[in-house]
């Protein structure tokens, strides 16, 4: 047994000695959030309550909830891990994830709030033929959300194997199932109200936990960031290169392209994520939507700045070997950092580890609830009510469909979650961003701003972007032909990049344009007048 394994086992042993504490912290969060859920469920009477939390949240509350919805296990576990292993290259995630909010702020949040009701499909189908466009919007919402869910499930599996020393597949699947069941309960009972409160609580916990660790890391280096970086570079064994771009992506021309592809996907993905978009319906009007994005940019920006301390702190204080052996993609770097900063053999270290792990667990649950809500509302509102029932379903029937969809999506993501457990969580989320940027963003922008855009254009951009993005992922080294792939033992990867964005995003835009110029039908100018005036003024907004 080498040194690193010893340390990791030690971590697990320390954790297991304090297992009652860890389990109590998890339990406190679960019980508190279930309480919130039941309370919110009692207040959920009509569809606007279930889908949009009654549209009564304030801009600050929603900003907090948006942050809670957005800062996922990818941000917390994934980015910290990517920085801890690859140094500066991991930091790109933080930057891309933040800058992306400007697209949402400047182009999407307010028009969407003004012209939609419950889902992304409301806006995409506004001036189009309802059934085909809603089917497409629902499909893409569910696909993007499931990609994202996969990442969260992988994060949950990782946490538990570290904390409880469970490395068996059965143990991991059990915890993934537990997360799945909880999210089904949160969403089907609490609806958007319950989910929003869970996300607010989680945002406060995550910011609090991150501040604490950041403070302790900086304290160790007397608040000298240059020292922290220097120690990280030295301890990583890679020297100054650790602080420069290129360690992960600089090796070859292909990997450099991959870096660009990832960068584009990150910056254009956020404004196409359905679980983020539906949050703008929870505030009274577009002005409040704008303010909630501003709050979110502040909170999220502060958090991503602290990922520097988390990632480089882990690199400075823990050996590379230990980080990698604990999880090949570095996903456990943040909890390990908590353990080390408190002292590996001390109770204080174990308490910090337990706290940070509970925060990560809360993070995963809140994001997973948001994703499930987005996909089940889209199923119920877009596909069931408007496609299957052709707008004839009652609100009661629609909400019942949403609850059943929640159960179904929960079960699907539990099943898929087990497959993805060794992939870097941030990398997986980047795929969801690529799909969102390829299928959803072009269609949203064309719908809002291009007079001539037609139903055929919308269908081509959604399906074109979706199929190419998902197809390229399927044939990429993420799925096969790489030791870290989902199926490492087979190789059908002919697409060299791990992120498809550089091809699939322009393709989505191109298809929207091509579908429109080649379409035989005339655009519905009357409906566009309605959409345009509504989206800029809020006239008739719900």
């Amino acid at each position, binding site marked *: 047994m080498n040194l690193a394994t010893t340390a990791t086992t030690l971590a697990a042993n320390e954790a297991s000695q304090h297992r009652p504490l860890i389990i109590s912290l998890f339990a406190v969060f679960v019980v508190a959030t279930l309480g919130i859920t039941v309370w919110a469920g009692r207040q959920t009477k009509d569809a606007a309550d279930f889908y949009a939390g009654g549209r009564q949240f304030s*801009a600050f509350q929603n900003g907090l909830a948006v942050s809670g919805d957005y800062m996922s296990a990818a941000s917390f576990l994934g980015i910290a891990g990517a920085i801890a292993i690859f140094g500066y290259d991991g930091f790109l995630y933080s930057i891309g994830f933040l800058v992306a909010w*400007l697209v949402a702020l*400047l182009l999407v949040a307010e028009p969407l709030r003004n012209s939609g009701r419950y889902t992304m499909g409301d806006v995409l189908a506004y001036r189009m033929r309802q059934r085909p466009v809603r089917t497409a919007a629902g499909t893409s919402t569910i696909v993007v959300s499931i990609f994202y869910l996969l990442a969260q499930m992988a994060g949950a599996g990782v946490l538990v194997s570290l904390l409880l020393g469970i490395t068996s597949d059965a143990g991991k699947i059990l915890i993934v199932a537990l997360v799945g069941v909880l999210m089904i309960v949160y969403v089907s009972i609490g609806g958007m109200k319950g989910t929003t409160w869970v996300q607010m609580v989680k945002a406060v916990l995550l910011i609090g936990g991150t501040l604490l660790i950041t403070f302790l890391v900086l304290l160790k280096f007397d608040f000298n960031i240059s020292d922290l970086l220097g120690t990280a570079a030295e301890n990583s064994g890679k020297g100054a290169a650790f602080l420069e771009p290129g360690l992960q992506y600089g090796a070859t021309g292909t990997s450099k392209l991959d870096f660009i592809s990832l960068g584009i996907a990150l*910056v254009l993905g956020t404004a196409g994520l359905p679980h983020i978009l539906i949050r703008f319906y929870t505030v009274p009007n577009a002005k409040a939507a704008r303010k909630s994005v501003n709050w979110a940019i502040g909170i999220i920006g502060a958090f991503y700045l602290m990922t520097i301390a988390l990632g480089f702190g882990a690199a400075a204080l823990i050996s590379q070997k230990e980080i990698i052996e604990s999880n090949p993609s570095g996903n456990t770097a943040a909890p390990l950092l908590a353990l080390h900063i408190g002292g590996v053999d001390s109770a204080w270290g174990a308490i910090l580890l337990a706290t940070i792990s509970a925060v990560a667990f809360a993070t995963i649950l809140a994001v997973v609830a948001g994703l499930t809500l987005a996909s089940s509302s889209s199923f119920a509102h877009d596909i069931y009510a408007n496609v299957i029932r052709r707008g004839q379903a009652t609100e009661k029937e629609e909400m019942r469909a949403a609850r059943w969809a929640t159960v179904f999506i929960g079960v699907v993501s539990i099943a898929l979650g087990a497959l993805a457990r060794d992939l870097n969580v941030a990398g997986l989320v980047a795929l969801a961003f690529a799909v969102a940027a390829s299928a959803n963003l072009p269609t949203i922008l064309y719908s809002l701003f291009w007079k001539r855009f037609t139903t055929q254009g919308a269908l081509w951009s959604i399906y074109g972007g979706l199929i190419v993005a998902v197809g390229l992922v399927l044939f990429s080294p993420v799925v096969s032909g790489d030791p870290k792939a989902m199926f490492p033992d087979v190789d059908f990867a002919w697409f060299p990049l791990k992120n498809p964005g550089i091809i699939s995003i322009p393709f989505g835009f191109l298809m929207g344009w091509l579908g429109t110029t080649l379409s035989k039908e005339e655009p519905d100018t*009357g409906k566009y007048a309605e959409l345009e*005036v509504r989206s800029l003024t809020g006239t008739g907004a719900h």
Partner: protein
Amino acid sequence: MATDAPPPSKEQHRLPSTEEFAEVQQSAEFGELRRSFRSFAFPLTIAFVAWYLLYVLLSNYAGDFMGARLFGNINVALVLGLAQFVTTFLIAWWYSRHAAAKLDPKAEAIKTRMEGGA
């Protein structure tokens, strides 16, 4: 924390007719609102995406420049990365100021008139 606006009423606002929407869309007042939104948001979007891509490209192809140390272990790459944070905060603030001063009053006037019905 409260927002500026009262919660929306449960009853439906009067939704103007298609003709009214078309008329407003063609009006000079709405044209001006659209122009002051688009002429601000579109170029700014292109600008920050370009600035971000420049940063990504520099990371990829200008390793020596990015690795140059400015003080201690702080190099150009880190400073440029932090600059992306700063510009994001500034642009968010700038847009919100523009929207509050130039867009909201115009939008509000049109909305009130249309929903009031005339």
